């Protein structure tokens, strides 16, 4: 299978002295869900900006669906790739929700009934039909985040880039957002998600890439990553709460685990299953 995204020895710096990305190489297959982890300032957001050629000047090569990211191909690449910014206020610039969603498809050349259908479909997919006429300014953080996703969804991209989508959201909105990501994943979209909160990574993100000071220090399964405390410490990350509790219980009551051969849990649900099995035995 040809990769949908490919970074080949990519380096980038905003100012001549400070290199934000250092020789990054990795590939992402179509339909894959990948989480990019790293502490603040590790170059995660810059990676996304480079992918869309929004900050030109990288060295090495980036390919999206076989097209090299450069000035010539940037429009085609931006049609196939949707970026949801970390701060929704940085992304939403039109007066009403409806206009905000219409912006992308309008630029793709959709007009009249086609445009209307596209707006309605995006609103229905993200479940924001009730706020379509509202002013963007009057929306809550969660609503703004949903509008930003709907605005990108309306362009029907193959790749979705989420820059810290769960930041500053209440638990209910987070759940809604995870459901939206899950739907996109089931539709076969390629998802890349930036986070530094290991507890907030949805279950279906099986692969993780860890950045530290602009360098890639890990690329593999999330489960493997949690087995490597050194990498987590180096990247200023920590184990998810479920894994931390599991290892603490294992440390304190090793006899409880003699009969079982559990994989260390990485989600709350996995931890709950293990706990119930142990308690059942006790």
């Amino acid at each position, binding site marked *: 299978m040809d990769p949908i995204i490919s970074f080949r020895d990519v380096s980038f710096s905003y100012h001549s002295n400070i290199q934000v990305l250092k020789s990054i190489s990795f590939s992402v297959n179509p339909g894959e869900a990948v989480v990019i982890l790293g502490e603040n300032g590790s170059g995660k957001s810059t990676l996304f900006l480079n992918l*869309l050629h*929004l900050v030109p000047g990288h060295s090495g090569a980036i390919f999206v669906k076989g097209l090299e990211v450069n000035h010539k191909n940037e429009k085609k690449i*931006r*049609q196939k790739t949707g970026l949801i910014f970390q701060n929704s206020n*940085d992304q939403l610039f039109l*007066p009403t929700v409806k206009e905000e969603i*219409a*912006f992308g498809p309008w630029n793709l050349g959709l007009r009249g009934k086609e*445009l209307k259908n596209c707006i309605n479909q995006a609103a229905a997919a993200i479940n924001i039909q009730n706020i379509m006429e509202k002013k963007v300014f009057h929306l809550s953080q969660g609503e703004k985040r949903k509008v930003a996703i709907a605005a990108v969804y309306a362009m029907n991209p193959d790749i979705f880039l989420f820059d810290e989508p769960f930041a500053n959201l209440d638990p209910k909105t987070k759940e809604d957002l995870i459901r939206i990501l899950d739907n996109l994943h089931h539709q076969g979209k390629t998802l890349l998600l930036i986070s530094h909160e290991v507890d907030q990574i949805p279950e279906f993100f099986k692969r993780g890439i860890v950045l530290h000071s602009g360098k890639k220090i890990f690329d593999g399964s999330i489960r493997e990553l949690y087995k490597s405390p050194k990498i987590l410490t180096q990247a200023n990350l920590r184990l998810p709460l479920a894994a931390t509790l599991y290892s603490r219980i294992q440390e304190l009551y090793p006899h409880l685990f003699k009969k079982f051969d559990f994989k260390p849990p990485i989600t709350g649900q996995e931890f709950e299953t293990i706990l119930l099995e142990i308690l059942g035995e006790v």
Partner: protein
Amino acid sequence: MSLVYQANKKFQNYLAFELEHTQKSYFFSVNPVIKLLITVGLIILINYIITEFYIWLALSFFFVLIVLLLNINISRFLKFILYLGVIYPALIAIPLLFMTSGVTIWQLTVGTLKIFISQEGFQLAVNYFLRIFATMSIIAFFIVSTPFTHIIYALRQLRIPALISSLLILTYRYFFFFFDNLVTLLRADATRYLHKLPFKARFHHLSNLFGHLLLQSIHQGASIHRAMLARGYQGEFPLLEFSTNPKRTVIYVFLTGIASLIAILTQFSVV
């Protein structure tokens, strides 16, 4: 500082007003192109054809009356025209009272300084005041029944260059960012400065604060530009169509047409 809070409060009030009342207005669904053309026509009528002060007054009150009858929040409307229609023209008219020579009707001598109001000055000031007042009440009438997006739609339909409408849209959105950032900064500032700074230090502090606000705005502007590019911006914003009500459009044209006709006939009968 409190001035900034007040300005922000007024701005937020206006926005809430726009949100609540334009949609409630009976003339919300009138074709905005027709509304805009009629508004421009009325402004031209008031400023270039009508010369009699009582016609200006009658036209102003006619629009206030429509607003009253259409269940648009009258107190908000009056507040709106108080700022735009009374304070602003008064600022222009008051100096004219004292700056026009002619037959003196009032005077005050303070030492060698002589302050006077001439009959011509008084007439000129009243004329300017009423003319601006009438213009502002028509603009206010238009604003209270037309949301911002409809205004942009009308401008685009009238072939106003996309660059101008795009700039208007971005400026409108930018107000929110600006006030939001400004108020957040001031609040953050207030939590750390518990004692009043000396006068000189206050200036230094304020310049730092506004410098930061400027940098923050530039940063946010750059982010928005990136977001626009990421979604394929090619120099135009979407022009969404919306449903209009032909019956209400006819009523709107009829009411404003009758008012204009009566004003013109009265003007020419006087002449």
